[in-house]
């Protein structure tokens, strides 16, 4: 399961979620603005606080880096 940690108005979070929707990748969205537990998890996983953070089965990607996402996804198929 792909996890994305995002904030409400972050454009790159939206781009990433739109990308997952368009390519039929199932994902769970954690809004770290409202969910302190998810925020702590995100900081722990990525070692930083910027959003979005994307967790593809343990591969952590900071930002909407489409090539890194595609690469991580293809490794998991």
């Amino acid at each position, binding site marked *: 399961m792909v996890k994305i940690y995002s904030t409400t108005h*972050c454009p790159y979070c939206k781009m990433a979620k739109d990308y997952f929707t368009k390519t039929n990748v199932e994902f769970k969205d954690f809004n770290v603005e409202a969910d302190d537990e998810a925020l702590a998890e995100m900081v722990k996983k990525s070692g930083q*606080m*910027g959003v979005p953070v994307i967790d593809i089965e343990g591969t952590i990607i900071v930002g909407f880096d489409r090539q890194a996402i595609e690469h991580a996804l293809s490794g998991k198929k």
Partner: protein
Amino acid sequence: MIYDTIIIGGGPAGVAAGIYAARKKLKSLLITKDFGGQSVNSAAIENFIGYKSISGADFAGVLEGHLRAQEGIEIKDGLLVDSIKKQGDIFEVADNAGGIYQTKTVLYTAGSSHRKLDVPGEKEYEGKGVFYCSICDAPLMKNKPVAVVGGGNSGLEAVIDLLPYASKIYLLARSEVKGDPIYLDKIKKDGKVEIITNANTKEISGDTFVKSISYEDSVSHETKNLEVSGVFVAIGWIPNSGMLKDLVKLNDKGHIIVDPKNQQTSLTGIWAAGDVTDGPYAQIGPAIGDGIVALLNVYDYLNKKG
């Protein structure tokens, strides 16, 4: 196969050019990392004529949707262009996924990137309290003191993005605050904003995350320290023109010099539009206009060349 034109960039200038290229039935390709350009960082765009208010993210969707509705333009997104080479009469464009394309003309609309402060601690704490996208990362500063560096419009916008979250906001301006009055009025009304002028940022420090920022008062030459959990850097933009520096003329700030009548660069066959050029106003409206002018001039050039 040789394209008539390759458009590089998916911001307002590139998308406008792409739509016109499709309508002129040019054999065209648009390569971009994503859509919307730097306007995606805006919480609300309120000066793009036709929309009273639209978020940067929605605006990016509008641009992409309009471009994808065209037939006949090829789009490669999620990619960066690595190099542009002139080979005789044509240009060779290489992307970062190994794709190589040949084209008669290039329309370069790669925009600009956040300018960095270039002080100790900035790089080390990037994402760990040092942020460049206030609309993205302001919510992480809930009930925390923060500093915004930059007294222009981007600085003021960052302050506005932080108002609902931060407990205290220091706005550090190198000289005076120079942003639009409409933003300044909003900021001055809020008691938690403290404007510090004549402030030269010296260092960002902390442990795992940012703890403080120091600056020198350029009048008294005193160095002062502020305890903050976040530093939002909003000191403007630098043009993404490095790739073309050996091919076309740039001004001293790195902007591509273009002829404003037709958006031609100093090298025949390469056009540029939007914030990467030396046009005086980095705004969505002019970028769209310049993208259209550039494409129409590319079309005339191709027709004359036959």
